[in-house]
């Protein structure tokens, strides 16, 4: 290095980049935490209840499905007591033209409205805790029947190997009217500015498939169920965009 450069390096302890950097960090060290605390308190979102309890959801709203026969065996579902909310819908359904054990599918909806919620575990995590082995994770396109909501969306598809059968699952989240498939995306959507109130809802369709068999027919059943159930939930149960903007 030349002597001139060396001199310029050693000289001037308060070179402006250092001074700016130190000033910035000092300011942030003193003021950032109180500022963020104040902002979080001032603009804190509040919770909002669904327009009607999810328990009012009826299988009659779904043209392609009927209630499953009472007492028919089905795949085990994750513990219903451990979902962290009382707003739950758990419907055992069957495709309209099917009989016996064929075409059975479970609609499982949970509704949350805590602004500080870290978003619960997703099926690929929860099913492992009860012994399932995740064999595939992907995405499944969902075509929504007539509604105010978008015509197409995407769900996450999961195939879980269980002792007797494979559990085939399609699920998505609806967060303040937005459809998301990951908990990080839900958390991001919950933080977006604009709305004054916040909710998110996990909508999950579960069916079974013979172990190791092609899961596509079972996944198609889940997609069809979500395509019919989501518009009903959006139109009749979940809060409207107008409600979300009011205190």
């Amino acid at each position, binding site marked *: *290095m030349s002597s001139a*450069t*060396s001199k*310029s*390096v*050693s000289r001037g*302890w308060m*070179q402006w*980049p*250092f001074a*700016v*950097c*130190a000033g*910035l*960090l*000092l300011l*942030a*060290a003193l003021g*950032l*935490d109180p*500022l*963020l605390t104040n*902002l*979080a308190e001032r*603009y804190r979102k509040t919770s909002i209840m669904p327009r009607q309890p999810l328990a009012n959801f009826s299988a009659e709203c779904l043209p392609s499905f009927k209630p499953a026969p009472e007492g028919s065996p089905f795949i085990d579902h994750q513990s219903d007591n451990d979902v962290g909310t009382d707003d739950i819908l758990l419907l055992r359904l069957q495709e309209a033209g099917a009989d016996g054990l064929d075409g059975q599918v479970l609609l499982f909806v949970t509704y949350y409205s805590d602004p500080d919620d*870290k978003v619960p*575990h*997703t099926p*690929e*995590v929860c*099913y*492992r*805790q*009860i*012994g*399932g*082995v*995740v*064999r*595939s*994770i992907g995405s499944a396109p969902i075509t929504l029947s007539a509604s105010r909501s978008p015509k197409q969306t995407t769900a996450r598809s999961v195939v879980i190997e269980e002792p007797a059968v494979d559990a085939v699952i399609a699920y998505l989240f609806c967060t303040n009217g937005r459809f998301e498939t*990951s*908990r*990080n995306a839900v*958390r*991001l959507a919950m*933080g*977006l*500015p604009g709305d004054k109130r916040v909710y998110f809802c996990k909508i999950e369709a579960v069916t079974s498939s013979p172990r190791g068999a092609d899961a596509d027919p079972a996944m198609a059943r889940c997609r069809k169920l979500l395509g019919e159930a989501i518009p009903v939930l959006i139109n009749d149960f979940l809060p409207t965009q107008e409600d979300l903007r009011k205190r």
Partner: protein
Amino acid sequence: MGHRDLVRPIVQAIILTVLCACTFRSEFYKITEQATTMAEAGHTLALPVMVALLVFARRDAIRKDIRRGSAWGPLLVAVAVLGYAATTWPFYFGYARRLQFVVAAAGILLTVGGWRVLWRCAPIVIIVFVAMPIGWNSFSTFVIRPETITLDIAAKSLSLLPSVFVELHGSDLHYHSSFTDGIIALGDPHRGVVIPFAYLTILIFVTYSRVRPLWQIFALGVLMFPMVLVANLSRLLLHGVLTIYGQAAPLDAWPRNVSMAAAMVLAYLIMVLCAFVLENLVVADDDGLPSELTEDDAA
């Protein structure tokens, strides 16, 4: 540049690092707490020592390359502060908050010494990035499949032991042997995500522990990922063997800690061996000068 000339950048770096720790103090406390209470995040505690050793290995080059601070330094630090603020409110993402340390570290290096010093110290920035304790839930979707494959391989391999049958049940390995039944690696998913980062930290440290030709760095970089997978699988296998033959309870810490430490040593030894082989693959020219592009040349 003489030793006296180094006083200014060193003092400035210390001042900015202390201010940075004060600014990001809440995350700093959390990282320290995790590193001191979770064995699998313990490598974070070694970070200051690793950073000091990496700087020491590059001391001559850094001394030679120190320039006036770059204006991009304060800009990067500002990005780190804004990123930290945004990931605190309105979006709370703990891991993203932690990564602001990495951006801030790059900003401080630029502020103190300029671009060439940042290039020299790139290994430090990389190692700070890898050593940040990672949250499992955020990445569960990405890691569940590779983790399941690792557990599957471990189950099949352990089943080859005489009179032992191991099957995957959820994220646990259940074993049945002629003398006892039990569970291996209960609750392993979290460790299965965090520990590979500890291995990666070690491998990066070995790679950069001396100034190497760039081709060696690339070669070792390519080797790192399979090595992490091998180390993680070795950990599970050893954990299984110790649990089965030591008849340990599912939550016993000793087989977990022994297997974790042994796999770390294995990862270190394999990487040192690879580095040794690579170093001896190329012989210096007759004039004694190195014939490859090195970090120095690239700088």
